[in-house]
């Protein structure tokens, strides 16, 4: 046994024999994760854990981590394990699967929910919607765990008003790698009081995550409060049978409007003007590829129709901007906001059409994973936050770069991704999504990796803010030196709080560290940025 008998016995006595396993079959299923699992760096590195454990409470998590600390057992916490960063990279790992810890409490009046690490967004949304409240389902889908996603990513169009996930974190209960429990926010002072997240002085949520998080590299969060927002949810009507499920929207309270443009600049300009006009609850551009994904009967159907229509799309390059209007203060607000939208579009231009009174993608995104449908793999070759113009300029540069790697990337047109407005227009996000088949021809996956690294270098060369700081690949060692060596600062935090380096090692170093990918990973010289 890779974990010593003594340690195993100690672990088993904490959770009981039903909730710990070193069965080879069980272990096999915790090896690779999902998103990014076929990337070449992971291929050589993803290991089976030695053991998988399912704690049922914070106390059990604490005790488990103390055992790990004592016996120097590396551990990896997983929520839904959708991303491959939770794949064990060193031998003899204890994978800590948190799905049992799925307590959920909602304070309806004060609009927040306290979640255990096993709660997924869909569960939270189901309960929130009952109460005239809502959370934001991230682009990776509402099957993601609330805590895992809040700690790591969490980007979706309703964040135009609700804020990115790191802004929605309130108080937190955090078990450090040595088993010490630290509460952040109001819970630090008053036990069980999770209403607020700011610090006692300096806000240590800043250590918990930044653009991305530690991906389990600095202990385990066992409770997190997240903000909820008012929403006219009691009028949503569930409808349909798979795969055509969705919400019928109350036409007097919620409305989608789509506006079509021939280029990204005019679409972005419209978004800028609309956000200044302070209307809407979601505001973004969406690529036409997604329409084809969502309407396709099958992969074959998608590829046939896409091949058929792409030449025309490449000629006319339609870009679609979408805005969701919500009458929180009643139908009159919806009417007002629609008048404003029409005024603005009349001024800036655009072909305005009302959307269907139906939503399957954004309120409780049932179809997020359609992006994996065409090729098998999707990655975000560009993941960028800054102002709208920065996002737009970078998106255009990314579209050009993408052509160089098409094929093996599936061909696209215009801006192959989306722009979103955040914080009511103060910030924006752009994501360039690429689709490919990672398994039929392994060289396709390798070429994608080369393109991915080149995309990171492109950010540096153009002095754009590279958002891929979370070590999905070799990014930190390339960009760190240009951004104040933040990665070395992170290393110091790692040493301070995980001196034994047992929490998802080798985080925060990238998982490709030391792997010979034959891709140039050296830091760039002469790129701008931090001094």
């Amino acid at each position, binding site marked *: 046994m890779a974990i010593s008998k003594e340690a195993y016995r100690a672990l088993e006595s904490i959770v009981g024999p039903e909730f710990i396993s070193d069965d080879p079959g069980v272990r096999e299923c915790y090896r690779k994760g999902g998103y990014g699992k076929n990337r070449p760096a992971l291929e050589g590195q993803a290991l089976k854990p030695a053991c998988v454990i399912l704690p049922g409470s914070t106390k059990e998590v604490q005790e488990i981590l103390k055992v790990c600390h004592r016996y120097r057992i590396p551990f990896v916490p997983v929520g839904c394990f959708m991303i491959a960063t939770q794949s064990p990279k060193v031998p003899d790992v204890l994978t800590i699967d948190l799905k049992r810890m799925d307590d959920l409490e909602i304070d309806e*009046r004060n*609009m927040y929910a306290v979640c255990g690490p096993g709660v997924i967004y869909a569960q939270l949304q189901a309960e929130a919607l009952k109460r005239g409240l809502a959370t934001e389902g991230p682009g990776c889908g509402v099957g993601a765990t609330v805590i895992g996603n809040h700690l790591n990513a969490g980007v979706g169009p309703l964040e135009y008003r*609700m804020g990115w996930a*790191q802004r929605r974190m309130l108080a937190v209960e955090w078990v*450090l790698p040595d088993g*010490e*429990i*630290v*509460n952040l*926010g109001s819970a630090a*002072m*008053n036990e069980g009081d999770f209403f*607020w997240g*700011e*610090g*006692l*002085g*300096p*806000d*240590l*949520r*800043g*250590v*918990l*995550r*930044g*653009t*991305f998080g530690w991906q389990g590299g600095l202990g385990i969060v066992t409770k997190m409060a997240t903000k909820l*927002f*008012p929403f006219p949810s009691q009028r949503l009507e569930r409808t349909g049978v798979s795969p055509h499920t969705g919400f019928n929207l109350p036409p007097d309270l919620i409305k989608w409007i789509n506006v079509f443009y021939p280029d990204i600049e005019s679409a972005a300009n419209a978004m*800028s003007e609309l956000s200044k006009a*302070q*209307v809407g609850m979601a505001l973004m551009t969406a690529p036409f590829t997604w329409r084809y994904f969502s309407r396709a009967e099958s992969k074959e159907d998608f590829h046939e129709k896409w091949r058929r229509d792409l030449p025309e799309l490449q000629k006319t390059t339609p870009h679609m901007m979408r805005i969701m209007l919500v009458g929180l*203060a*009643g139908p009159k*607000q919806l009417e*007002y906001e629609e008048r*404003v939208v029409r005024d603005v579009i009349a001024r800036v231009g655009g072909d305005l059409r009302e959307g269907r009174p139906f939503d399957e993608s954004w309120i409780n995104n049932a179809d997020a994973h359609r992006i994996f449908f065409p090729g098998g793999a999707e990655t975000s070759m560009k993941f960028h*936050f800054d*102002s709208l113009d*920065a996002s737009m300029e*970078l998106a255009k540069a990314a579209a050009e770069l993408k052509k160089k790697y098409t094929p093996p990337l599936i061909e696209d047109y215009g801006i192959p991704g989306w722009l979103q407005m955040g914080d*009511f227009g*103060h*910030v924006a996000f752009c994501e360039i999504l690429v689709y490919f088949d990672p398994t039929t021809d392994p060289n396709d996956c390798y070429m994608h990796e080369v393109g991915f690294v080149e995309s990171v270098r492109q950010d540096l060369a153009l*002095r*754009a*803010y590279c*958002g891929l*700081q979370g070590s999905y690949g070799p990014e*930190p060692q390339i960009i*760190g030196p240009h*951004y*104040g060596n*933040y*990665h070395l*600062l992170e290393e110091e935090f790692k040493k301070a*709080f995980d001196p034994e380096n047992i929490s998802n090692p080798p985080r*925060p170093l990238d998982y490709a560290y030391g792997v010979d990918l034959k891709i140039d990973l050296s830091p760039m010289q002469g790129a*701008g940025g931090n001094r």
Partner: protein
Amino acid sequence: MNIKEALSRIVGRENVSDDPEELDAYSRDHSLSPPRRPSYIVRPRTAEEVLALVKFAGEHRLPLVPASSGVHFHGGTVPSLGGIIVDLRQMNRVLGIDERNRKVRIEPGVTWAHLATELGKRGFMPLFPLTPHPLKSALTSHLEREPILIPKFEFGEPLLTTEVVWGRGQIFRTGAAAAGIGEGTGSIARGAFPHGPGLDWWRILQGAQGTMGILTWGNVKMEILPEVNKVFFMPFADAADAVELMYRVGRKMIGYEFLMLNRMNMAAILAEDWFEDFDRLRALLPEWTVILVLSGGPVRPGERIEYEEEALREIAAELSLPEVRSSLPGLPGAADRILHILRHAWPEDKLYWKWGFRGECADLPFLTTLDRMPRFVRAISDIAAAHEYPTSEMGIYVQPLEYGRACHCEFSFFFDPFDAEETDFIRALYADAAKGALDLGAFYSRPYGILADLVYARAGGYTMMLKKTKAILDPNHILNPGKLCF
């Protein structure tokens, strides 16, 4: 080693002072903090000078205390262990106004008055806390997480990207500024996004009272100044009666500025003079006044106010509120005056409202939820009464945050700083009020002065983590030592 000489070589002789009067001025502020004297004052002008100061201080383990404002309220700039005041007021430029993305880049010495004036020229406004002192640094207010008057989410966290000199001796840019700030520098990056690189450094800097790093500039959000506004006043006899109103207004996400003031604070803010007018207002005003400003957007402004007003009146009807009015009885022009006050720094030619009554004021700020707010009002009033302090002389300010998901409460105790007995009396009352509120569950997210002792003693894990964080960012422990838990 001649420290003064060394400092002069960094910032220039004219920017170093050990004048006793100046040092005295920095040894105390408007809080109850006991006086502590610095040894020097330096006035850097650039980030490089700040960096050199930090490195020098690090080598010699000399405390550095950053100060950006011309006025200080919470003891944050009183040097607990002596040392060098880093007076940043010469770094007072508005570096860039980005209208398209509604942000403005400012140095720490930019005051509220200056910022409001500059933005006002272009039809914008900063995100105000309640009546900031004109000499107060706007950037510092955002660093201190002073609550904003407008509880819309996206206005609640105005700080974006920054340039900071860490105590470890490194100039670092937070957020997208790490890649660039635009403004004609050739970068695609515009410095709008606050998060990263890596961790959320801006969060660690907020609330730190200069113990982690010294900001040399910051990007902060600004908003379009609404041209059309309508102010509403809702009077209440009891704070508890206002709670449901505040929740419902939040749920409908209507309005701009939204706050509640008790009679004392309202009178102090509105009084034209501290004699007749102040007394008249104290007799005239209701016990509590909720103020809600409805503002039109840039497009069809009047129409937004229309539906929001209708929504407000619906709420009022549901709650059977006695009054929703656009004026205050006996106070002609109150709506315009309040709007002006809320959207400007306190006038430079007028005595600051907190000092008018007795000369000085000790504030007890904390966070809680709206439904719990009334019990704090009762409890602190009881504590005041137990000290035989007239509760009618206590100032209370309630600020809903983020659509009413929480609220900031601020209790103000006015006192004569030249009366030692009175000062001691207030000090004792303040301590009891602070403990009493703590026992009821107050959340001191801005632990000034004695609040720090209360807070860090209770939060062992948090304190440990803060200390380790400090050890990384300020390993020589030179930045404002003695503050918080350091």
